[in-house]
């Protein structure tokens, strides 16, 4: 299975679309949002940190959901069928693909945080950086499952569209681009129940020196269960035809 993960990670990192849009885009947006239009004297440190977490979360979310787009592509090419006639068991293929997703979210997280530290001068104790990376990494699990579910259930073309749509919706609604505090009241309360928002909250709590609240973890766990169930359902349905 390690070989499979290595193969898939390699394929993902060689994907120019992934590198440009998955890693370059969040970095670029972070730089723009914290340096342009911020008025004389630039943006405050608080916004630099909030936006750093938001953009790292956005990049990670995109990479996680994108894993499913890759699955749909493989399904379309007949590669999933080919894998089924190797001794690699179906469960290892699915788990391997999920773990691949968890590896490919790291470059986006690392890139945005690096820019935060080097360009925007964000300073935090080492444990906070480590915890931030760790939490953002673990927190992508629901999105990987959502992407995989779409990838197994839908055709190659529609998966790309649906996954991109999911990513944008969850990112914007979750307040990863613009803080949810700027939303009107009803949207703000809706936002706090979305997985994107709670995902970023995992990271934000660390930057404020605390641990994520129980509510945040509970909401994310609920989304994890929901998307996990969806992925299992989609895979079972697809297994009949792939």
């Amino acid at each position, binding site marked *: 299975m390690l*070989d*499979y993960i290595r*193969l898939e990670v*390699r*394929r993902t990192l*060689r*994907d120019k679309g992934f590198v440009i849009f998955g890693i370059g885009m969040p970095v670029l947006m972070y730089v723009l949002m914290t340096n342009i239009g911020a008025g004389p004297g630039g943006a405050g440190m608080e916004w630099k940190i909030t936006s750093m977490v938001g953009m790292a979360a956005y990049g990670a979310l995109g990479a996680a959901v994108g894993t499913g787009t890759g699955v749909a592509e*493989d399904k379309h*090419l*007949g*590669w999933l*069928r*080919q894998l*089924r*006639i*190797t*001794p*690699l*068991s179906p469960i290892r293929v699915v788990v391997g693909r999920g773990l691949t997703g968890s590896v490919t979210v790291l470059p986006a997280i690392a890139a945005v945080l690096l820019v935060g530290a080097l360009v925007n001068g964000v300073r935090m104790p080492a444990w906070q950086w480590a915890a931030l990376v760790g939490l953002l990494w673990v927190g992508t699990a629901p999105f990987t499952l959502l992407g995989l579910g779409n990838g197994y259930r839908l055709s190659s073309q529609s998966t790309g569209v649906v996954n991109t749509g999911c990513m944008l919706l969850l990112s914007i609604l979750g307040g990863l681009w613009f803080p949810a505090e700027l939303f009107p009241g009803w949207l703000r309360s809706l936002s706090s129940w979305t997985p994107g928002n709670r995902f970023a909250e995992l990271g934000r709590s660390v930057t404020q020196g605390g641990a994520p609240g129980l509510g945040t973890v509970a909401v994310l766990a609920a989304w994890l269960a929901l998307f996990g169930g969806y992925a299992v359902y989609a895979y079972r349905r697809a297994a009949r035809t792939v």
Partner: protein
Amino acid sequence: MTLTTGPVSAARKADGAAAVGFSGVTRSYGAVRAVDGLDLEIAAGETVALLGRNGAGKSTTINMLLGLLPPSSGTVRLFGGAPEAAVQAGKVGAMLQDGKPIPRVTVRELISFVAATYPHPMDVTEALELAGLGEFGGRRVDRLSGGQAQRVRFAVALAGNPELLVLDEPTAALDVEARRAFWRSMRAYARRGNTILFSTHYLEEADEHADRIVVIDGGRVVADGSGEAIKRRAGGALVSFDLAGAASEPLPGLPGVSAVEIRGDRALLRTADSDATVVALAELGLVRGLQVAPASLEDAFLALTSARTAPHGTAFDAADALSAKEIA
């Protein structure tokens, strides 16, 4: 119901686990029966061609064989167990018809990965050589031509050094040269004692490269044996001569004749016994520009498979109907 001919099938041993065993297998897609009561046994070490026209049920049969598709009824066994078990044990390698190699990996990376999933894989360099990819190892799979990509799929099938190699229309995208090289490699692999099943709708390929041909049509086996045996089945030879104004009425009644066609002034007789037919023609004084040709495998194939689907109205209907009756 099934017509079994030739020494190969007679020589097949009843004891021991066959490499492949289908018994009473059916598979329906909604109201359509793609496979309709298939019985087939392939002994270890045989090279078998699964011959049929498009839609005859070849790919459905292969998908069931590989455990990709459960049969609607009946059982499929590989090496005495369930197909999934044989696949898990690394005994099976396959080249699927609709498979395309995945992008953004090199040929060697891909083949190495597949090989590593098997317990006793082939050396990667050897697999690449055997598939005719020796010089393309470092090339990205998505930057290969159609023929080269087809060879990659062959290498994927070979990589695990499987006992049973299944090839679904393996030469579809290959030019003549590549085709020849492909069959050379396949034979080399067969000589190592491996079992090979390939599907094709090219008759010559089946005749030249398989020990045994299994003709399927309408989801069942309609003939099973060597190429020679199948040619014999379809009614021996074609006898043709110039009528030169003679009446054609007595011709269908001549010994051995199963069908008559008149083309201009030339008569073509399909006959099961060309000697008897020619003697009878001589007695009638009809030996003018006489030619006796063996029925081609193509004739045999058409005779065996046209019963259900071919449009009627040709002079060879009689032969078709006859074969159909015998088969049914």
